[in-house]
């Protein structure tokens, strides 16, 4: 699994730096019994192919706002309207697409679902009923969680 989460971290950083944002600093790696995330803003992307499951990018509101600002060049400042959410969805699509290409380069071929954005306080979430790897990362203005609940599909 180690190469898989490092692929996702490098994909996030690659996309963020393209937008002029600072790279995220990984703080902690956790293994969770269920693929869950405890952040107010979450983007779920499904993976199918050589690896199957869901990846969740969870973030604090401030982090989501900063990403939306970067995506829209300052036109939209938060995720309160659909334009902001659409920008965030597109950013997550870019990150997942980059990760999918990087995975393909190491021989893991995947197909992606469009991102679904879920926003709310005190959410209770189960993403996949498998053990997942969660990387907690520090952004410029808050914390972001990358939760990877993928497993190898039997040949």
């Amino acid at each position, binding site marked *: 699994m180690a190469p898989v989460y490092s692929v996702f971290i490098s994909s996030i950083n690659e996309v963020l730096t393209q937008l002029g944002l600072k790279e995220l600093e990984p703080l902690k790696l956790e293994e969770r019994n269920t*693929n869950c995330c405890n952040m107010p803003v*979450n983007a*779920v*992307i*499904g*993976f*199918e192919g050589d690896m*199957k*499951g*869901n990846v*969740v990018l969870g973030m604090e509101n401030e982090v989501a706002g900063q990403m939306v600002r970067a995506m829209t060049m300052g036109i939209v400042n938060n995720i309160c309207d*659909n334009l902001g*959410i*659409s920008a965030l*969805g*597109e950013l997550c699509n870019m990150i997942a697409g980059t990760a999918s290409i990087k995975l393909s380069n190491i021989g893991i071929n995947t*197909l*992606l*679902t*469009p*991102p*679904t*954005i*879920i*926003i*709310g*306080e*005190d*959410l*209770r*979430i*189960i*993403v*996949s*009923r498998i053990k997942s790897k969660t990387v907690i990362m520090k952004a410029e203005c808050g914390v972001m969680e990358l939760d990877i609940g993928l497993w190898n599909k039997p040949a």
Partner: protein
Amino acid sequence: MIDKLSRCFIRAIDDIFLGFIEFIPEVQDIRENTDEINEEGTVSVVGFVGGRRGRAILYYDNELLMFFAKNMLGQEEIDEEILLETAAELNNIISGNAVTYFNDDSETKLRLIPPSVFSGRLKVVSPKITSKQIIYKTIAGKFFANIGLEGGK
């Protein structure tokens, strides 16, 4: 294609409701391009890939989910985790059946991603999705299915 997939979901929902709680829910309304859900309750999201990319979101009032969980498990004590698991399992079965009906009768083949479940006061948005929201009347609270495909009908 979205119409055909929606019909497959309606058939699968009827089958599953009848099988588990012996009740066929009544379709109250079908709305187009409702890509935002703003509700308190539980939603389960299952993605599909293959010939087209998309997702199905099933929303349950917690009262309805509790009714399902009690009938499926045959027990009165249902905790929160079981409720979430019930939503995931229902979405898995409904989407699995719907995609099978669709694939059996279509050249475009879809494959499912395992479901994810969210509970609480939620806003769910799927950017760039063409969707149909099928709103049901049930015996125990609100239920709807939002079927969406990327890139038009």
